[in-house]
């Protein structure tokens, strides 16, 4: 249902944009709400998406992901250096973790499949440690953080493409003791 809602919204925006570029002076009346024919009737379930955000339990895993933007940061090939985007994500993760001091975390380090087994275990450990160290520097007590490396054993995405590799070179912050959502 959420997908259908987004789609009709996107169609509406596209039409507006197209109309604007065609003729900026003669703005047509706003288009009527679009209801693409393939969209099924709204189901009886609740939840327009605007009200979903209100139902996220503060202190829950879902809340963490929303507030931090992501539970994971990504790395370049054979690198454990955090980029600006990763540091921003970890800044927000650290802020959230300081707010919910009862939550402890395990930072899981992962590698893509383009390294040998043992090397990737060590590389995943480096990545987990890079993220964990940064979180500590942002004020998350070391005692709340553990790290574990999965090397290339637990890819997030199947496949042998560059895009799959990019998603698999990651450090994921996994919460324990978070509020139930």
């Amino acid at each position, binding site marked *: 249902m959420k997908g259908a809602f987004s789609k009709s919204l996107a169609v509406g925006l596209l039409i507006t944009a197209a109309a604007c570029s065609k003729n900026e002076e003669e703005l047509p009346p706003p288009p009527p709400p679009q209801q693409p024919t393939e969209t099924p009737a709204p189901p009886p379930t609740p939840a327009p998406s605007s009200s979903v955000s209100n139902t996220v339990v503060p202190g829950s895993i879902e809340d963490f992901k929303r507030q931090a933007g992501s539970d994971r940061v990504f790395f370049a090939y054979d690198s*454990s250096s955090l980029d600006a985007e990763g540091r921003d994500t970890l800044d927000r993760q650290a802020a959230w973790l300081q707010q919910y001091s009862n939550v402890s975390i*395990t930072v899981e380090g992962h590698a893509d*499949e*383009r*390294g*040998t*087994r*043992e*090397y990737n*275990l*060590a*590389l995943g*450990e*480096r990545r*987990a*440690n*890079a993220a964990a*160290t940064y979180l500590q520097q942002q004020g998350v007590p070391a005692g709340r953080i553990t*790290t*574990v*490396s*999965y*090397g290339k*054993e*637990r*890819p*997030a*995405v*199947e*496949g*042998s493409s560059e895009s799959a590799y990019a998603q698999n070179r990651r450090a994921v912050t996994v919460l324990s003791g978070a509020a139930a959502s």
Partner: protein
Amino acid sequence: MMFDRLAGRLAALTCLLIALPAAAQNLSVDINQGVSRPLPIAVPEFATQNSVSTAAGTTAQLGAQVAEVISNDLESSGLFNPIDPLAFTTDVTFPDVTAPRYASWRTVNAQALVTGFVNANANGEITVGCYLYDVFSETTLVRQGFSTDASAWRRAAHKCADAVYSRLTGETGYFDSRVVYVSETGPATSRIKRLAIMDQDGANHRFLTNGQNLVLTPRFAPNQQTVAYLSYAQNRPRIYIYDIASGSQRLIGDFPNMSFAPRFSPDGSTLVFSQARAGNTDIYKMNVNGGNVVRLTSGPGIDTAPSYSPDGRRIVFESDRGGTQQLYVMNADGSGQQRISFGEGARYGTPVWSPRGDLIAFTKIGGGKFRIGVMRPDGSGERLLTDAWQDEGPTWSPNGRVIMFFRSRRGGGADLHSVDLTGINERRIPTPLEGSDPAWSPLRP
């Protein structure tokens, strides 16, 4: 244990056999050449003096099966070409075993002939007689016998194949050996991995762990009774030792962070392994009970995948201390660390010292591929043996002539393969599911 009995009986039986005359020099196999024409050899069904039932079938049935196992072993080496039994012009009766009809074997162009028998003993055991003849010079090259529980008849067959291989190549054999590996199934994102063990030809396959915990990199102890491996039990990657006979597993060492990449010293007393501390991985050793931990490398690089030389005096390992993953050799106390791999634009990992001591096998990463290769311990003489998308994790046959490894497929999945040192004879090793991380045992006693 049945194995001990086999060994004991083997010794006893060997004593009964008549010493052979110095072998004819004209029949031999050169193992160092790429064999374009493997030696034609006939392995007819083994005879029986009096076919009786055993726990594993009649001795006549076992005679046929033993010959098949021997034939498959010899063929798999790439050095022998067993002749199709349908071409044979004669059966081998019990008296023929020790008095072969050479003329009829010459008509099918057999250069070597393996005959034998399977007889039942009064105590429930069988005796397998094993004979090798040079068909053209009409000389006897091997005359041996093996007694064992009937259920272990495959081991007697492998022992016979090893005797034939050894006599004709001048090398020790490798057929009576086992492989422990990681059996794999399921999607890459939630792969189930189990320790499994089998004979080197894939027979007698058995799972050792149930797949509940992720397991990696099993390595045989020199006495073959135990296997060191990495387990994610309790989501903490640490080194365990598995006892094959009892099925028990115990944690080795108690470290705050990941400990991994274990390998035994040649005398079995020591484990060399990697340990991560604060994101930095170094190589350590400890005794097999987890005590007496000694750090062997230090510094900010990843140092891992250590492997002892067969004399126990040196250790080869991989390190990215120079910027990329490369091979290094050091003394067993950590002194004298020296880089040995220098391939341009390439990285090297998973080094394993040959049981002969003469070569180090490795995975070479370059050009978008992983390939299996060998080099001498000083880094000279590098040769690549395979060329596929991703071949990784070599392990040596007990005689240092064949390398088993795993081959991953683009998009997921992996299987076990072997290749000999010529790089010509490459084969897939059959496993019930997919497989990785093979470790070849020493020759069984």
